[in-house]
């Protein structure tokens, strides 16, 4: 590994962290949605600075090519984020449905009250 790749790894990881933290700072991202991105960014930065940790971990897990551990970790993070997004989507859909139902009933009540008032 030459200096260029070493610096490239660090810059890429740092960029992820900066973007996530900036979004959090400006309240464009809620903490619980950012957890996995923060974890991923931090791990990536640590590994970029100390690549020896990756080699050591890969050896520990019996993975011949350390880069495969990186791929595994990346896919796992993306999987978790996508799953969390689906779950949030389900929750939002439920809430939207309930709101739509309540709005329809409120509209009905409002119409009835109006009608009563014009009659009486």
């Amino acid at each position: 590994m030459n200096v260029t790749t070493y610096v490239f790894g660090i810059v890429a990881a740092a960029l992820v962290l900066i973007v996530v933290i900036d979004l959090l700072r400006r309240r464009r991202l809620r903490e619980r949605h950012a957890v996995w991105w923060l974890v991923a960014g931090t791990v990536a930065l640590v590994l970029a600075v100390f690549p020896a940790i990756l080699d050591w971990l890969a050896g520990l897990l019996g993975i011949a090519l350390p880069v495969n551990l990186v791929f595994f970790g990346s896919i796992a993070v993306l999987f978790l984020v996508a799953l969390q997004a689906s779950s949030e989507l389900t929750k939002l859909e439920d809430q939207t449905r309930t709101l739509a139902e309540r709005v329809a009933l409120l509209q009905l009540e409002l119409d009835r009250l109006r009608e009563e008032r014009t009659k009486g």
Partner: protein
Amino acid sequence: MAIGDERVLVVIPAFNEELSVADVVAEVRRKSPFCDVLVVDDGSTDATSIRAAEAGALVATLPFNLGVGGAMRTGYRFAFQHGYDIAIQVDADGQHDPASIPALVAALGAGDGADLVLGARFAGEGDYRVRGPRAWAMRVLAAILSRSARTRLTDTTSGFRAAGRRAIALFAEHYPAEYLGDTIEALVIASRRGLVIRQVPVAMRARVAGTPSHGFAKSAIYLARAGIALVFAYLRPRSAYREALPA
């Protein structure tokens, strides 16, 4: 409670049924004058709401399409909020004969204190028949749900049903949203919550308007979705289902 004392609400979920909804409302009002009628317009793009209101029904208009499940939960919530004793679902396409409403009401009030009464289409009356894979699917569903409900049910996908106070409170909170799965999943929810389910035979008619959902591919999809809905309805923790609390 003597028959005739109950406050009964007929809930008619309607999605783009401007051609038939007025006739259905008028027929319910004529044949069962003791009922109030609520049409839940499920985000129709036609004049369903207007036709229903002209025919003298209360109309709740959903801002967008939620499916029968969402429309029915709206109806049950309305019934719950206004203290109705019985809520009866009648389809807007005219295939449910309102003449059977008194039979459903009577079955709810009968000795064993049923909470939910299904209008079964194959139990002797009328000439409604289904063949092929859809019929097998319905038979399997009926067998599973009969076990769960501890009573003999022959037509679990019937949308013609009457709910008593406990069922209204439960369905005001939990009515399955899944398309097509709503009729059977609602039964699972009710039986797991310990509600008493019964069925009475009713006659079915050909639809006044609209096309029935048959065909092999559609039946297969129907079966798959119903199966998935059923499995997860049983897997869900019992504590997930609770009656709504009075406001």
